[in-house]
C-alpha cells in the first residue's frame, strides 16, 4: 500500500514545494547591501541615508508587497577590504542590490566582483570617471553599475574651472593661482586639466603639485605657494589629512586664501573639529540647507531631526539610491536584475540635490535643474554659505581673517 502511494506522496510534496517556493520568495524582504567605509562620516551617512529611505518606504508598505531590509559590510579604504565586503554581500547575504562605495580605487577593484555577481551597484561616493567608463566599454558585463552620487571627477573638474574663471578671475579679479592635489586616482587627471585650461583662460599657474595623502607637514608647500605670489590656492583633497592642512595654513597665517574640493571639510562638524581654523575655506558640496530644489530643506530637516546631526554628501546620494531602486522595482514589478536595469535607465527623480537622470554610461547627469556642484564657504561662527554659482549664492565670499582689508 505504502509502496503504491509513495510516488503520489512524493509528487504531491514536490508540487507543494514548487507552489510554496515562489510564494516564499514574494514574501521575502528585498535585501539592500551597503558597502562603505564604516569608520568615516561619509560611510555612516551612507548607511543613515539608506535607513531613512528604507523606513519611509516600508512605512508605506514596501515595494511590490515586499519590505526592504539593510545589510552592511565595511569596505574600509583599501581594495582588499572592499573586495571582501562585496563578496560577502553578494555571496553570503545574496543581496538584491549594492549601494555605497567611497574610495574610487576601492570601487575600481570591486567592479569585476560586482560584475561576476551580476548585482546592481548604485554608487554613492566614488568619483572616478573610469568606473562608469566600464559601462560604455563592456555593457554586457558592466551594465550593473550606476553612479547616483557624486557627479564624476571630470565633471567636477569642469565645475572647478567654472569657479576659477567665473569667481576667482571674473568676480575677484585674481590673475595667479596655485593648484595642490593629493596623489590619488581621481585627482591625477584633474590637475593637468585645470592647469591647462586655467592658463588658456589667462591665469598664471606657477605651481601645480601633488602630495602623498600621508603628508603630515605642509609648511614647504605653503612656503612655495607664498613665494610664487599666488592669490589663491586651489585644493583637491579627499583622503588626505585636510584637518592638518587647514590647521597649519591657519596657524602660519599663509597670505593666500584656499578652496576647492576638500571632502572632509564637507562634514558638518569639520569647523568644530579644526577649532574654527577652516574659517574662509571654500569647498564643493552637493546639498545644503538651502532651497536647491523644493525637497532640499524638508529633506535636510528630516535628516537632522532623525539623527541629530547635519548630513554629508553621501547621505543624500544613498537616500536617493534607495528610492531610485524601489521605484525601478515598482515599475518593473519584479526584482529581476535585467528588468530593473532597464527601468533604472529611465530614471527621472527629483531629489534634494536636483533632478536625477542617468546618461548612457549610467552616470548621474549634471546641468541646469540636475545635480550640480555648489561652492560652500565656512564663515563666521561656523556658518556655511553658498558662494558659487552666482544663481544660488547666499552670501559674499570672505577673506581669511589675517587678509581682511580694513
Amino acid at each position, binding site marked *: 500500500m505504502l509502496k503504491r502511494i509513495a510516488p503520489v506522496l512524493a509528487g504531491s510534496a514536490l508540487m507543494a514545494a514548487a507552489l510554496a517556493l515562489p510564494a516564499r520568495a514574494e514574501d521575502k524582504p528585498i535585501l539592500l547591501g551597503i558597502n562603505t567605509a564604516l569608520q568615516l562620516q561619509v560611510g555612516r551617512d551612507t548607511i543613515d541615508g539608506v535607513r531613512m529611505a528604507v523606513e519611509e518606504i516600508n512605512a508605506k508598505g514596501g515595494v511590490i508587497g515586499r519590505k526592504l531590509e539593510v545589510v552592511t559590510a565595511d569596505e574600509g579604504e583599501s581594495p582588499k577590504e572592499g573586495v571582501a565586503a562585496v563578496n560577502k554581500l553578494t555571496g553570503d547575504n545574496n543581496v538584491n542590490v549594492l549601494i555605497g562605495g567611497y574610495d574610487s580605487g576601492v570601487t575600481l577593484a570591486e567592479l569585476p566582483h560586482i560584475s561576476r555577481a551580476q548585482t546592481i551597484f548604485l554608487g554613492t561616493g566614488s568619483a572616478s570617471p573610469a568606473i562608469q567608463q566600464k559601462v560604455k566599454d563592456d555593457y554586457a558585463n558592466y551594465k550593473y553599475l550606476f553612479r547616483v552620487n557624486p557627479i564624476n571627477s571630470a565633471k567636477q573638474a569642469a565645475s572647478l574651472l567654472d569657479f576659477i574663471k567665473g569667481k576667482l578671475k571674473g568676480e575677484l579679479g585674481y590673475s595667479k593661482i596655485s593648484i595642490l592635489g593629493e596623489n590619488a586616482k581621481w585627482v591625477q587627471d584633474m590637475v593637468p586639466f585645470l592647469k591647462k585650461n586655467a592658463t588658456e583662460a589667462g591665469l598664471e599657474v606657477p605651481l601645480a603639485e601633488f*602630495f602623498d595623502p600621508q603628508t603630515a607637514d605642509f609648511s*614647504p608647500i605653503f612656503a612655495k605657494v607664498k613665494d610664487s605670489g599666488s592669490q589663491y590656492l586651489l585644493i583637491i583633497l579627499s583622503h588626505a589629512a585636510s*584637518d592638518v592642512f587647514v*590647521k597649519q595654513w591657519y596657524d*602660519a597665517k599663509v597670505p593666500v586664501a584656499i578652496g576647492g574640493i576638500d571632502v*572632509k571639510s564637507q562634514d558638518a562638524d569639520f569647523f568644530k*573639529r579644526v577649532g574654527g581654523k577652516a574659517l574662509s575655506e571654500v569647498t564643493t558640496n552637493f546639498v545644503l540647507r538651502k532651497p536647491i530644489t523644493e525637497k532640499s530643506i524638508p529633506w535636510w530637516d528630516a535628516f537632522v531631526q532623525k539623527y541629530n546631526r547635519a548630513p554629508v554628501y553621501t547621505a543624500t546620494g544613498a537616500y536617493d539610491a534607495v528610492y531610485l531602486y524601489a521605484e525601478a522595482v515598482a515599475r518593473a514589478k519584479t526584482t529581476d536584475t535585467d528588468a530593473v536595469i532597464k527601468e533604472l535607465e529611465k530614471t527621472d527623480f527629483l531629489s534634494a540635490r536636483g533632478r536625477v537622470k542617468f546618461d548612457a554610461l549610467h552616470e548621474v547627469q549634471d546641468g541646469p535643474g540636475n545635480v550640480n556642484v555648489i561652492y560652500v564657504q565656512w564663515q563666521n561662527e561656523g556658518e556655511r554659505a553658498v558662494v558659487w554659482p552666482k544663481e544660488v549664492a547666499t552670501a559674499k565670499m570672505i577673506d581669511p581673517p589675517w587678509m581682511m582689508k580694513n
Partner: protein
Amino acid sequence: MLDILIYGAVISAVYALLAVGFTLIFGVARILNLAHGAFYALGAYCVYTLTSNLHVPLIIAAIIAVLLVALFGIAMERVLVRPLRRLPPLAVLMMTLAVGLMVEQILLLIFGSEARNVPSLVESSFNFGGVLLSGQRLLAFFCSVAILGGLWLFMQHTRLGAAILAVSQDPEGARYMGIPSDRIFSIVMGLSAAIAAAAGVLVAPFQSVIPGMGLLPLVKAFAIVIVGGLGSIPGSIVGALLLGYTETIVAFKASIEWSQIVSVAAVLIVLIIRPAGFFGKRAAF
C-alpha cells in the same frame, strides 16, 4: 634658504625627541619597543580628552598627559614585558607590537576615526625674515631642545642617570654593584614613554589626532635610530638632523611628494654602507 633652515630645525627637533625615547629603552633594556608610537598617540589623546571633555587648562592637561603616559609605560614594562624577559627577544618585540595595536584599536573604539582637535598653546605666528612660523611650532622646537638638554643633564649629573648608564653598559655588572636593574628598566620605560608623549602633546595642535597617528612617528624613529645606530642617543640626534633636513630640502627643492621616501631611502643606504649606523656601538651614550 632661510625657510629650509627654520623648518628643518623644527622637524629635526621633533624627530630627535621621538627617536631618543625609542633608542633609550633599547640602549638600556635591549627592548625594541614597537609601542613607542602608541605612547605618542596616547599623549595627544590624553591632552585632547582633558581639554575638550574635562575642560582642564591646556598647560596642566599637557603635564598630566605626559605623567599618565609615563605611568602607562611603567605599567606596561612591569606587567607585560618583564615576565617575558627570559624568553627570546622576539617575545618582547611581539608583546610591544600587540600593545601598540591594542592602543590603536581602543582609541578607535572610544574616539572613532575622525581627527580630533587639540588647541595650540601659542596662537600667534611669527615672521623670521619673511619665513612664517606658527607659535606652536616654535614652542615645539624650544621644548624639544629643552627636553633633550634636560635628559642629557639628568644622565650625566644625577645618581639615577649614572645608574641608568651603568645598566646600559653592563646589566650584570651593575646588578653586582647593587643597582636594581629591573627598577631601572621600569624607570627608563617610563622616561621613554614620557618623552614620546611630550612629542605627541607638542605636535598635536598642528598634526592629525587620529587613532593611527603613532605609526608614522614610529617608522621615522625607527629609521632615525637605524641611521644613527641603535642604542645611541648622539646617533639619534644626528640621525634626526640628517633626516629632518634631507626631508625639508627635498620638499622645498623637489616636491613634497618625494620627501616621504627619504626616510626609507636613508635606511636602505645606511644598511648597505654601514649596517650598525653612524654611531652604532653598543650603549654608546
